[in-house]
């Protein structure tokens, strides 16, 4: 997929120049050449007339208003969106639906946000997504409450909100307002090949001591126990935070999200960092991992050169072309650190991802919301799962479908995790904190340049820096 893989696209200098030129044109059309301003006028916002609101049309969609959808053309492609658009068109045959897809969401759409003419629905995802903190704090997004409180398409007695998995709205919610709908549902855990483990007679370990013991065995058998996405070492922050949350309870994650003082210095995080640091100290990591990007390291893992890797459930789709037949991709929660962990072994991080937004200045806001309602219908969600092998935030939409092995495994462990499932969102509140600061600390930890105490120190320094920066809007959650 998309959201967490930063390097899925590279930007050339020419692109940047084109962007600059585009800004120039924008300015030039805005007024006199030199007096103009790249900030545009913000005018020209002729909203489409809404339709009448009634029980069949709770959002007041105008039947004939055109709808424009822009999709992030990443791991999921764009075909699924065309199917959703066809479903929308089925409901509103008179509406013209305009579809486009790009991997450069930010560069393509940023001028249109400034100009006041953004599309009606945007799949704001990928390495070049538009910063959510910026979008929300600058009032560029519609509150999705009307959609969430509207009756669902399948069952008029249930609101859309009630059809979603628990916690699915958390990542798109800022100060209590849901501004982004995260459509997919992702399990974060530790991945392995079911076949490899079965062939060698190994068992996935439930405690960290067992993990270390198994690593010793694996290394003796001539394999590398672990690898990680070296150039994006933040992937290793996921098992560390998960293990810490299981040790001390998910409240420590709330503290991190809220940038509370010394949140990262909690003993549990240090203990978890020590556990994963052990992998580096004992030489259980595939040599060279630190120099590999996510595709390179995941490919080594698929080739059977390493046994475990931390990732989210987009992994199966990402490695589709490389994973050998019969690989039996499977995911498991992080091993418990101690016997006294607050959460059971089964608990794991589950989160919705792949954000969809309806810009506040869109011409057809009701249409945009209605499009999301179509996506969240059982039909829309099942179609998505079938096409791209990913779960959606819609409860039970995958039932009755044949799922590939990795997704089957993810579904199973997520069910086992149930209401013990936890999540954190500091990465979407403060993108830089995860993508730059925690990322760097993980890189240093996994290559033994710093020790676990310095690791928590460094993460805390990053969080404090964000907390002090008055130009960044802060969000709280409970």
């Amino acid at each position, binding site marked *: 997929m998309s959201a967490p893989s930063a390097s899925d696209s590279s*930007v050339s200098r020419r692109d940047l120049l084109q962007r600059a030129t585009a800004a120039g044109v924008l300015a030039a059309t805005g007024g006199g050449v030199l007096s103009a*301003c790249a900030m545009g006028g*913000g005018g020209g916002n002729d909203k489409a007339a809404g339709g009448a609101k009634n029980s069949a049309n709770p959002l007041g969609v105008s039947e004939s208003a055109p709808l424009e959808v822009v999709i992030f053309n990443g791991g999921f492609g764009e075909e699924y969106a065309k199917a959703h658009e066809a479903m929308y068109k089925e409901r509103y045959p008179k509406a013209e639906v305009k579809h486009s897809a790009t991997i450069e969401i930010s560069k393509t759409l940023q001028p249109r946000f*400034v100009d006041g003419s953004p599309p009606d629905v945007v799949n704001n995802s990928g390495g070049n997504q538009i910063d959510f903190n910026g979008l929300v704090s600058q009032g560029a997004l519609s509150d999705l409450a009307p959609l969430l409180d509207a009756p669902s398409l399948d069952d008029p007695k249930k609101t859309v909100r009630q059809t979603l998995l628990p916690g699915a709205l958390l990542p798109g919610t800022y100060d209590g307002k849901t501004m982004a709908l995260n459509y997919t549902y992702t399990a974060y855990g530790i991945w392995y090949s079911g076949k490899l483990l079965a062939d060698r007679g190994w068992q996935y370990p439930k405690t960290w001591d067992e993990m270390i013991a198994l690593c010793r065995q694996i290394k003796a058998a001539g394999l590398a126990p672990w690898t990680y996405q*070296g*150039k994006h070492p933040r992937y290793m922050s996921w098992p560390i935070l998960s293990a810490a949350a299981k040790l001390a309870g998910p409240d420590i994650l709330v503290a991190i999200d809220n940038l509370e003082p010394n949140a990262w210095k909690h003993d549990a995080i240090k203990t978890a960092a020590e556990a994963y640091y052990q992998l580096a100290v004992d030489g259980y990591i595939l040599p*060279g991992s*630190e120099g590999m990007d996510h595709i390179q390291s995941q490919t080594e893992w698929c080739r059977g050169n390493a046994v475990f890797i931390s990732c989210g459930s987009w992994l199966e789709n990402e490695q589709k072309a490389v994973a050998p037949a019969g690989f039996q991709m499977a995911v498991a929660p992080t091993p418990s650190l101690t016997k006294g962990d607050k959460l059971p072994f089964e608990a794991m991080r589950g989160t919705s991802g792949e954000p969809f937004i309806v810009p506040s200045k869109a011409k057809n806001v009701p249409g945009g919301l209605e499009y999301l309602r179509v996506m969240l219908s059982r039909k829309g969600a099942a179609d998505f799962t079938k096409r791209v092998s990913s779960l959606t935030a819609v409860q039970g939409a995958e039932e009755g479908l044949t799922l590939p092995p990795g997704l089957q495994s993810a579904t199973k462990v997520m069910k086992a995790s149930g209401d013990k499932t936890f999540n954190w969102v500091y990465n979407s509140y403060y993108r830089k904190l995860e993508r*730059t600061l925690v990322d760097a600390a993980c*890189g240093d930890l996994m290559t033994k340049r710093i020790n676990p105490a310095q690791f928590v120190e460094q993460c805390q320094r990053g969080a404090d820096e964000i907390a002090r920066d008055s130009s960044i809007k802060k969000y709280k959650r409970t």
Partner: protein
Amino acid sequence: MRHGKRLFIATFLVPPLVLYALFVVSPYVQVFQLATTDWGGLSPEAHFVGVDNLRRLFADHYVWNALRNNAILLVVMPVVTIVLGLFFASMLMVGGRRGRAGVRGVRGSAVYRLVYFFPQVLSVAIIGVLWKEMYAPNSGLINGALRAVGLGSLAHPWLGDPNLAFWCVLAVMVWSNVGFYVVLFGAGMQSIPRDIYEAALLDGAGRAATLARITLPLLWDTVQVAWVYLAIVALDGFALVQIITEGGPGLRTDVIGLRLYSTAFGEAKFGYASAIGVAMLFLTLSVAVLALRLTKRDRVEL
């Protein structure tokens, strides 16, 4: 007919000047204006903040970290590129010692000239992707070659090693630039009269002496130009760094251009990014002026 001539000139001159004003001058002017605002780049709304951005800039250790890397690039990259360029060019043009008489390049110089120019034909994006794969720890060509000849102990996770990543990127910059300067210096050497070389040869001057005493002084103007160009390249470095390392590991290969870019597009702080841009403009200007001043020398008249 005077009037007609002026009109004629104007019809050619005005369109490019208008385009230049529109697409080059006006964005520059706007950046100055934006640098004094807190514009976030996602709405038309912006507030005037005066010199706040500038103040923030001076205290921003990420900017200083990137600047430090640019400074190292600025010192090392032009020197290495120019020295290599001069060396290759002189070998190709006058380095040959085969036969008794005449001044010519080393054997196969036509082939080398072509090969050196290859990187220049590739777009910078391709160069970046190419080298990213070359440096890959297990599947990359460099470690593969080292292992194939029994030097496996020298294999490194190049871009994953904070002590090496920066130099790896620098090497790519030199690699991708040197070909152009070989051609530039080669063309300059062609305008140096052959008899000077022949006289030097008769007097028994070796290759090194010829390069230092004859070629370099006579090429000084060209070297000076090369210096300014390369200094500007060194102060930028955005595209290659963005593609090869994205500034990593842990911002150790960050450059000011990339900082500007991620501030604007990653963190949605266009006002602050514009301030970085303005600072960068003045920095580049002063470096260019400085480079011209420091390399000023009396011209050798032929």
